[in-house]
């Protein structure tokens, strides 16, 4: 589903953010990407739907080359859902309008069909009664669940999560993770940048460990948590699992 091959990315002439990153996500697979801050994991996931340009290598999304100048990027992005660290709901639109905007403008759904879909998804993430509120009236956890619903409203073939719980207060993390776990169990293809190792243990198929722009380890979940091969991954795990 997602093929990442030898991707290089530079910020300016000197700093290389990604170094020959190669990995893939198969249909129905849940891949967790972890690593210390500044390791390039968020950059990598943003390259997948071309929110970040990259200079070398290629990314193939469902058979379509992302970094081909001829690719219709809006059309491609509409098929992949993305959830951001800071939710990025549109503050001037009501919750229901947040969910309907792209359905109507991008997919060309009728207003009624978009509203029906939006209400169904809000019900699913437990926020149907908040449909007529503005994002600022909701808690962080609720906003992030809305953001997931907004992405799902486009009927995506895969979902990208960029540190979806990092900006949340601790008591709100589980309500977001619960929604993600449900999604994973339904067979959604997911690439998740997160430090939530509990989530990784529960639903991930594979774990990718990145450090300084490189994919250091790319292993099945059992292998990764059982016996990481690289020193750097071992150190990282001991640091985040010791408390």
């Amino acid at each position, binding site marked *: 589903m997602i093929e990442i091959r030898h991707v290089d990315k530079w910020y300016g002439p000197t700093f290389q953010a990604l170094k020959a990153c190669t990995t893939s996500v198969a249909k129905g697979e849940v891949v967790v990407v972890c690593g210390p801050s500044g390791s390039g994991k968020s950059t990598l996931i943003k390259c997948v739907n071309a929110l970040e340009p990259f200079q070398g290598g290629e990314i193939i999304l469902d058979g379509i080359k992302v970094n081909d100048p001829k690719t219709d990027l809006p059309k491609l992005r509409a098929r992949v859902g993305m959830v951001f660290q800071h939710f990025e709901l549109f503050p*001037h639109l009501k919750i229901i309008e947040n969910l309907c*905007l792209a359905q109507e403008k991008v997919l060309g759904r009728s207003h009624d069909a978009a509203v029906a879909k939006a209400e169904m998804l809000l019900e699913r993430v437990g926020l149907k009664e908040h449909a007529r509120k503005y994002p600022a009236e909701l808690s962080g956890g609720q906003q992030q669940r809305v953001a997931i619903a907004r*992405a799902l409203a*486009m009927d995506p073939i895969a979902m990208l999560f960029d540190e979806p719980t990092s900006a949340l207060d601790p008591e709100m993390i589980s309500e977001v993770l619960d929604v993600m776990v449900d999604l994973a169990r339904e067979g959604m293809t997911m690439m998740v940048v997160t430090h939530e190792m509990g989530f990784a243990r529960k639903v991930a198929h594979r774990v990718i460990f990145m450090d300084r722009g490189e994919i250091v380890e790319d292993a099945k979940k059992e292998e990764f948590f059982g016996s990481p091969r690289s020193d750097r991954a071992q150190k990282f795990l001991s640091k985040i699992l010791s408390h």
Partner: protein
Amino acid sequence: MFANFDFDVIRRSLGYLFLDGMTFTLTLTALSAVGGIIFGTLIALMRLSGFRLLGRIAGLYVDFMRSLPLVLVIFWFYFLVPYVGQWVTGASRPIAVGAFTSALVTFIMFEAAYFSEIMRAGIQSISKGQPAAANALGLTYAQTMRYVVLPQAFRNMLPVLLTQTIVLFQDTSLVYVLSMPDFLGAASKVAQRDGRLVEMYLFAAVVYFTISCAASFAVRRLQARISIVR
């Protein structure tokens, strides 16, 4: 001290001053503000676009307009446009451009430079995550601007845009150089006809002051309301 003044001249000319003069002034202000905001937004988008040439052109335009006194622009535009039009269309005589059209186009062009800086600040005040989220949903650049970025930028900048419109309202009085019947022009005509200069210009000042002050006050209240909603 007011013994020699005849303030009744104001009462006698109220109809002309407000029905003709103020209507003209307000029409010119409203149309210029709307046009200026539309073109100003386009200029702001050019400046913020990734295309360096477009940005450079827009930047030069803004600097050029801001470096000239408005009254000169009004004056030159009125006298030059007929000849420029003749040159462009290859007509045998200068084309006739009405004074109102000429003034309106001048104000739109001039104000666009100022409104563009306001809109630019407004667009830059939106976090990068917003257009990223819109793009991730499949919205095109134009859709992202229209449905996500510009509505928020406009809302954030509304008080400043309105304040600039109050300045514009006062600036429209400069059309006197084209001897047009705006509020000040009308007052000045009555003043000269009846020889009541002090009375009429005093009255004009009071009217401009009252309207601008009331509008400023309304903008401040609006600002307070918006900041609570956010």
